[in-house]
C-alpha cells in the first residue's frame, strides 16, 4: 500500500510553475529523500502532501485520503524548515498540546511528553519558555513535536537545520529508530550525506521538474557518489567540467 501518491501533479502559482507533472508512489516503510536546489519545488511538494497547497492538475493522496481530509494526517509528524514555535509557551506545554492534537489519549499525554522530551534531550529545559531556547534547542522541540505519538509518516524539511554535529547524529538516530518501527519517512534536505544515510530512494527536482527518481543505486551511477550524481543532474555542464 502506498502512503503518499502523486499522480500527474502539477502546481502553478499564477503564471509560475512550481511543480511540473510529478508522479510518485511512496510505499509504507520506505524512506524517500527529496533533493534539489533552492526553488526546485521540494517545499511545494510537502505543502501538497499537507494540504496547504492544492494541485493545479493531477491528484495527491496521503494514506489513501485527500490531503484536505484530516484522516490523511492521522499519525503524521511534520518538521518544517521554517519552524514556527510560540515563544511564550513552555516546552512541555507545547509538546503536550501537540500530543493531544495528534490523538494521544489524554491519560497518556504526560507519559508520551516525558518520552519525547527525554528522547530529544530536553529534560533540563522542559519548563523553559520556547522563546529563550537557542536555535538548536528549538529544533529539538520541533523534533519532539514531530515524534510525538509514534508517527507512521514523518515529513522532515531540512531536519538538521540549526543542530550541532552531535545533535545531527542524534537526529539521524531518532529518524532511524522511527524507520525501524515501520515509519515511512520523507526527507527534504540539502545535506546529501544525511539523505544517503537515511533514505533508500530519491527524487531529484530541478526547476519544478523531476530529473531523477528511483533507488539510490538507480540514481547514482557507477564510479560516482551522490554529490557527483546531484551535480550531474542539476547542472550537467558543471558535472561534465568536473569529470573532465
Amino acid at each position, binding site marked *: 500500500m502506498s502512503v503518499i501518491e502523486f499522480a500527474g501533479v502539477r502546481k502553478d502559482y499564477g503564471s509560475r510553475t512550481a511543480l511540473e507533472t510529478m508522479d510518485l508512489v511512496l510505499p509504507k516503510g520506505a524512506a524517500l529523500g527529496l533533493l534539489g536546489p533552492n526553488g526546485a519545488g521540494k517545499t511545494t511538494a510537502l505543502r501538497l502532501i499537507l494540504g*496547504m497547497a*492544492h494541485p493545479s492538475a493531477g491528484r495527491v493522496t496521503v494514506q489513501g485520503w485527500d490531503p484536505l481530509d*484530516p484522516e490523511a*494526517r492521522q499519525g503524521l509528524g511534520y518538521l518544517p524548515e521554517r519552524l*514556527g514555535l510560540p515563544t*511564550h509557551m513552555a516546552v512541555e506545554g507545547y509538546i503536550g498540546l501537540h500530543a493531544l492534537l495528534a490523538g494521544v489519549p489524554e491519560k497518556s499525554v504526560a507519559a508520551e511528553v516525558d518520552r519525547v522530551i527525554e528522547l530529544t534531550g530536553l529534560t533540563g529545559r522542559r519548563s523553559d519558555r520556547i522563546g529563550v531556547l537557542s536555535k538548536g534547542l528549538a529544533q529539538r522541540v520541533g523534533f519532539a513535536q514531530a515524534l510525538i505519538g509514534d508517527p507512521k509518516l514523518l515529513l522532515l524539511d531540512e531536519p538538521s537545520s540549526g543542530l550541532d554535529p552531535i545533535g545531527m547524529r542524534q537526529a539521524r538516530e531518532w529518524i532511524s529508530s522511527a524507520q525501524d518501527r515501520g515509519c515511512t519517512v520523507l526527507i527534504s534536505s540539502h545535506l546529501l550525506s544525511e539523505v544517503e544515510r537515511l533514505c533508500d530512494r530519491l527524487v531529484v527536482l530541478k526547476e519544478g521538474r523531476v530529473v531523477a527518481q528511483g533507488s539510490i543505486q538507480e540514481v547514482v551511477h557507477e564510479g560516482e557518489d551522490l554529490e557527483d550524481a546531484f551535480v550531474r543532474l542539476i547542472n550537467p555542464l558543471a558535472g561534465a567540467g568536473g569529470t573532465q
Partner: protein
Amino acid sequence: MRIESRPLRWLTTQAVRDASQRRLVPAVLVISVLSLFMMDSCTSCNANVVVQGEPQTMDLSSLAGLFTFGLLAIWSIALAGLLASDHLREIFEDGSATLWLARPISRPTLALGRLLGSLIVSLGAALLLCGGASFFLSIRGGLPLLPAIWATLSVLLSCVTMAALAMMASLFLPRLVAVLMVFGGVGLMAVLNLAAAAGRPLAGLYYVLHQFGPPILSAVMAALSPWWTTGPVEIPLWDVALRSISWALGSLVLLLIVFDQIELSRLEAR
C-alpha cells in the same frame, strides 16, 4: 465541514492564551476600567435649568444612557473586529499554523478555535462595558434594565459578526487594510443607522447598507427604545433582531467555509 469538539476546546484555550499575550489586551482592560469610571460619573449628572424664573431639574439619564450605550457598543464591536483581524493570520505568519494543520484536525476547527479565542476576550470586554453601563443607568437613572440586556445581546451578536468578517478579510488583505475596514465599516454602519433613526432619507448604496447590512446601532437603538419617549424614528425590533442573528451566523459560517476552501500556502511567510 467538520468541527472536532475536543481539538476545538484545546485550540480555543490556546487562542485565548495567545490573545492574552498581546499588548493590545492590557490597553483594552485599562480603557474598559476608565470607561467604567466615566460611566460612574456621567450617570450621576443632572441639569439645573431655569424655566420662566422657576428652577427645574432635568433628568438627563435617558439621553446619557442612549449616548453612553451607543458609544460603548461601537467601541466594543470595533474592538472585536480589531482583535480578530490578525488572530488567525498571525499564526500563519509565525509558522505555527502549519504545525497545527499537520495534525488530524479540520481547518474549520482551527478557524473556529481562533475566532472563539479572540471573541472570549472581546465579548468579555463588551460584557464588562455594556453590563457596567446597564448597571449604572439602572441604579442611578432608574431606567428599566431589560432593554439594556437586549441591547447588550445585540452588541454581542454584532461583535461576532464583525470578528468573523475581520478574520475572513485578514485572509485576503494586509493587516492594516483589514483594520481600516473594521473601523471604516463599523463607523459607516453606525452613521447610517443613526441618520436613518433621525429621519434623514438614505438613498442608493447607503439605503441598501442600512436596510440589509449588520444593524450595529439600529439594534441597540431598537432595544433601548423604551428609554426614550420622543425623537427618533421607530425601529422595528424583530427586523433588526433577525438581521443581527442572521449576520452573526452567516458571517461565522462564511468564514469557516472560506477557510476550508482557500489555498493556505499563500498565507505563510516566505
